[in-house]
């Protein structure tokens, strides 16, 4: 009978790479069973089969089926196909893995070395391979390059990382308990009050995140600006114009500001002082995932999820190291010079990599953050097998350039602070000059020197005042969050993990708690949920409790606490919270029900009623005929009878815009296999008349 080592990888792409790397001839045979691929390799006298997961194949679920109530505290791990309709593919997938496990003599977990990867591998070995998690060995690697995979396989870890797994299981189980109980409490409260079913959700990380958004939005909405003034002067020195700023950047009274500006109405000033300083700028530190996401948003406006996906693709293709890391360290074992030599093969990076290689000793400028499982993100130096698309190229370039820059020398800069005296008022300007380019040459175009060249200057030199401008200003409200700043806030508050934060933000959009991407704005429904959480279970929405729980889960990993303890504590808290929610169910329902009704009304609203001027035009379905039309909300109060016919087929979307010809609301009609078209509600619109 065929005997082999069964390796479990996290995804099919990774499985194929691992098999190819471990095969003596660098080739793998792709086999299929019921459309589930696995990869066969020959390694010495061993046969290896690499099968793969498809992300998580098991999930936490309640033990009682079909019962939609709360609180729920009994749960189990089950195959995902049993729990999620959309995961039916997993059923066959698991069958194939179980079949492959039957004849395997040795088991190796080669999923990504982090919390999620460890749980994926563990649950497959435990449930699909008949309890092999106890004897399986572990492959640990940070890149999918042939060299590293071979070395990792030759030096297998003797067992799975059970501490990491315990911590991960605790996280999943606690998140499930929080999510299911709180979400059901909200959904049921709203349903009982409004008789409408809308899925509402909240969770351990979602609650506090929603609270940050709510607090920010409130600060913006109650904001009152205050006036201040600033004065700038255009000054010409040797025929070059420069912008100077008055010493006091915010003048608080108009009288003072106008007085100063009036005394500056002269043609001449003189240089009062020149202050020259030299300073160094150290290279940037290597990328961890959040720094990469932040920089990618900065330069390419990619959302954190987009960046994460692109980085994952580059990783699976062995172009970069494991991206879901929080490390800012690059240990020498990754082989700096080997990577640089490989990069020399690329025409894009050859020149820069060469420069570093001749620079001598390579020492990266590391940051303080560490990750027990992986180093910071770095390029492997391997060339892509197939061409990268534009966004992949961008992220790859950013990662390579950052990697190169961290080895660069510090930048040496000179700052020249010049003050000019205009009728005894001092104005300032600072110019910069780069004396030594250092690491900046490796990080272009992601860094600018911002140099300003100055003419010959000396103290007492006469200058010409071209003009003096007094500007009215107001203090600004705080900025709304964007994907980057919200992610940073979550990270700073230590809630969620790098693997889950972006998904939590996505859920806030799906639940309609949040609108807008660059200016994230909490909706009325979001406000409603945040308010309920604050009033009835403030702990759930507080960063404090979430943070504490995160710390406890870290302690499991460090063997300072047990999963059982942490779960018992979490359930204790949840018991109190759910009982408060139950007691106040009616009140909560009324609050949320109103918001949901409003949200549904907004979705059906196509514009304001021109006839009564107070109602809103909404899509209505006639109870008598079953046909849909547009009517005024005041129709229900019998005060307005405005109505418009609608096409009976297709989807109607509100455009929140008015017809340029007649001023009536315009809607969009979408019918499958037809071009969507815009329709003015006014049957007598001149545009339509013309067409007749």
């Amino acid at each position, binding site marked *: 009978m065929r005997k082999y080592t069964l390796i479990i990888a996290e995804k099919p792409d990774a499985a194929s790479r691992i098999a190819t790397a471990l095969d003596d001839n660098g080739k793998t045979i792709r086999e299929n069973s019921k459309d589930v691929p696995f990869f066969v390799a020959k390694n010495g006298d061993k046969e290896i089969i690499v099968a793969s997961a498809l992300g998580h194949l098991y999930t936490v679920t309640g033990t009682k089926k079909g019962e939609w109530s709360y609180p729920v505290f009994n749960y189990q791990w089950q195959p995902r196909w049993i729990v999620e309709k959309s995961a039916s593919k997993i059923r066959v997938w698991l069958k194939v893995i179980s079949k492959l496990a039957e004849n395997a003599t040795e088991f190796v977990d080669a999923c990504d070395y982090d919390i999620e990867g460890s749980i994926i591998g563990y649950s497959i070995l435990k449930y699909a391979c008949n309890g092999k998690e106890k004897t399986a060995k572990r492959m640990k690697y940070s890149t999918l390059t042939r060299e590293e995979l071979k070395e990792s396989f030759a030096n297998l870890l003797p067992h799975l990382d059970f501490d990491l797994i315990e911590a991960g299981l605790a996280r999943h189980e606690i998140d499930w308990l929080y999510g299911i109980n709180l979400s059901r409490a909200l959904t049921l409260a709203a349903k009982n009050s409004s008789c409408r079913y809308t899925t509402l959700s909240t969770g351990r990380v979602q609650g506090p995140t929603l609270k940050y958004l709510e607090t920010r939005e409130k600060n913006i*909405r*109650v*904001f*009152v600006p*205050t006036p201040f003034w600033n004065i700038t002067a255009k000054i010409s020195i040797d025929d070059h114009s420069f912008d100077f700023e008055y010493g006091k950047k915010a003048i*608080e*009274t108009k*009288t003072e500001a106008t007085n100063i500006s009036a005394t500056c109405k002269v043609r001449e000033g003189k240089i009062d002082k020149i202050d020259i300083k030299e300073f160094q700028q150290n290279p940037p530190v290597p990328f961890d995932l959040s720094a990469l996401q932040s920089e990618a948003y900065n330069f390419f406006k990619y959302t954190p999820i987009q960046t994460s996906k692109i980085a994952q693709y580059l990783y699976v293709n062995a172009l970069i190291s494991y991206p879901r890391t929080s490390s800012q360290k690059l240990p020498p074992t990754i082989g700096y010079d080997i990577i640089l030599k490989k990069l020399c093969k690329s025409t894009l990076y050859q020149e820069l990599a060469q420069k570093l290689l001749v620079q001598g000793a390579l020492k990266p400028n590391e940051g303080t953050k560490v990750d027990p499982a992986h180093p910071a993100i770095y390029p492997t130096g391997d060339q892509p097998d197939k061409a990268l698309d534009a966004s992949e190229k961008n992220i790859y370039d950013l990662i390579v350039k950052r990697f190169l820059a961290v080895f660069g020398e510090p930048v040496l800069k000179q700052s020249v602070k010049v003050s000019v005296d205009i009728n005894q008022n001092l104005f300032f300007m600072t110019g910069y000059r780069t004396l030594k380019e250092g690491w900046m040459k490796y990080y272009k175009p992601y860094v600018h020197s911002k140099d300003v060249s100055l003419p010959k200057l000396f103290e007492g030199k006469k200058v010409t005042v071209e003009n003096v401008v007094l500007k009215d200003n*107001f203090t600004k409200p705080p900025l709304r969050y964007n994907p980057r700043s919200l992610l940073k806030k979550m990270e700073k508050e230590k809630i969620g993990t790098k693997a889950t934060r972006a998904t939590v933000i996505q859920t806030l959009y799906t639940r309609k708690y949040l609108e807008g991407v660059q200016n994230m704005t909490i909706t009325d429904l979001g406000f409603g949920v945040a308010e309920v959480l604050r009033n009835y279970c403030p702990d759930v929405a507080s960063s404090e409790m979430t943070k504490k729980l995160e710390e406890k889960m870290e302690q499991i990993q460090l063997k300072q606490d047990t999963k059982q303890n942490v779960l018992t504590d979490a359930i204790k808290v949840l018991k109190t919270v759910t009982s408060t929610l139950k007691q106040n169910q009616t009140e909560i329902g009324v609050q949320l029900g109103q918001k949901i009704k409003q949200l549904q009304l907004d979705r059906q609203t196509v514009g304001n009623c021109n006839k009564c001027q107070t109602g809103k035009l909404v899509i209505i379905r006639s109870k008598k005929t079953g046909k849909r039309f547009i009517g005024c909300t005041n129709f229900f109060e019998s005060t307005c009878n405005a109505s418009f016919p609608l096409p009976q087929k297709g989807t109607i979307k509100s455009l929140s815009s008015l017809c340029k010809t007649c001023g009536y609301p315009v809607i969009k009609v979408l019918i499958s296999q037809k071009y969507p078209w815009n329709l003015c509600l006014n049957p007598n619109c001149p545009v339509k008349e013309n067409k007749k």
Partner: protein
Amino acid sequence: MSCKICSRQVKEKGYCNRHLKAYQNIYEKFEMWKKALEVTWMDYLSKISKNSLTGEWAKEVAKQLIEDDRRNVKEK
């Protein structure tokens, strides 16, 4: 009892907690405006109610205060 501006429950001074916070802000910031521009209370309210940087709830309170004042003048 419900807020002078919205239908939410009154917290203090006839305002719900949202509009109360806006009212407090308006009240506090008046000192700075008075010093900066030597404006009267009504002038100030009119200026902030038209300023695009003023928050939505603060604008609602400012407009309501202006409206209140108009009504008081009429009644007198």
